């Protein structure tokens, strides 16, 4: 559960409740970006974020995100589990 996976913000779904759609390795799901709204430069479509239990925890740069994703794919089962759980998630 402590795994954090990078995803790219694809759409701000609801600014009032800080819900954004993120793309994680082709899987698009809603996450909460409320922890990052006071980040310098804010948070917007195209930004890469580290996602933990349905919340964006921090902003990451694109190269870092790519490296982490490729590492996580290599982790096999743990990443697949996390991705499966994210797929089953229905945050709204």
């Amino acid at each position: 559960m402590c795994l954090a996976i990078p995803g790219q913000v694809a759409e701000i779904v609801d600014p009032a409740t800080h819900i954004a759609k993120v793309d994680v390795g082709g899987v698009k799901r809603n996450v909460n970006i409320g922890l990052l709204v006071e980040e310098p430069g804010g948070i917007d479509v195209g930004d890469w974020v580290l996602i933990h239990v349905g919340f964006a925890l921090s902003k990451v740069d694109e190269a870092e995100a790519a490296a982490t994703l490729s590492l996580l794919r290599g982790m096999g089962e743990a990443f697949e589990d996390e991705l499966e759980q994210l797929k089953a998630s229905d945050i709204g």
Partner: protein
Amino acid sequence: MKYVDEYRDAELARTLGSEITALAEPGRHYKVMEVCGGHTHTIYKHGIEDHLPESVELVHGPGCPVCVIPMGRVDDGISIARQPNVIFTCFGDMMRVPGGNGSLLDVKAEGADVRFVYSPLDALKIARNNPDKEVVFFAIGFETTAPSTALTLMRAKAEKLRNFSVMCNHVTIVPPLMALLESPDLRLDAFIGPGHVSTVIGCRPYEFIPADYGQPVVVAGFEPLDLLQSIYMIMRQLAEGRNEVENQYGRVVPWEGNLRALDILQRVFELRPYFEWRGLGFISQSALKLSQEYADFDAELRWDIPGVRVADPKACQCGEVLKGVIKPWECKVFGTACTPETPIGTCMVSSEGACAAYYNFGRFARSKERAGA
């Protein structure tokens, strides 16, 4: 998009390994604790120890949220899950953790409505969709996860959702580190600091470790190279006689942490006077409970729970594993009575637990050989 070239990685790993070897003083043994269970997972999965000289020993720390939940808390959760009209939700890892009388999975098999969720927001949605049911979220995790529970509670309050509550088991990372540093059982040389916890709390909370105990701390990322580089940074500090907090994971971890997340934690939670940690015993001010303002959402106030301390099974040595006093394979029941399929202790349940990591990645034989057993 650029992808990491694996060959260069392997090359760089070898280089870092020889730099670390070169920094090791002949005749000295180094004990470096990786605090975070995520790091433990990476270390075994990628065979980080294969790149280290024998004099550098990695000691696994208490930073696995599932592993540190004591049996009594599982029983308390189960007592709520058994109530009529309750939908009990938790993270998947938590389902198989044995309490004094079975696990949440066992209670589910008996007919209780226990569901695993990916996010506390999924639990909130279940509450919204089932207004005639009581939905309880069993919250676990360090400061990495606590802000997510906090924001979920703020949302529940804003929506005036009366059928949602949280049984809070959030813990904080610094008090157990302090307890370990004070423990006579274990003499460490340095710490690999937890990466994701630090995105929230930043690096400052670790400053007491070099200041009061003279040991370096390097906050590390989760790639194999991150860990090797962090060990290299630690060895450099030790070789140069420096003790500092350094941030290897600066590309993700801000030195000051996430101020908004810290502010939210302050608002929604307060420190418990003490909390029991599996294997580590009672540690003062080491866990969070819902603040007065959120008391209406506190499952522990909504239901009578036994609140009884349950001793770990005699055969289980998770406590010593969590303190880094013994290696997983030194536990009497490791791999025999205790396996990931039928765990006795929490360290065998979670993928971040040291025992499960050892067991799953077959590091067992090699480590035993290395220790001359």
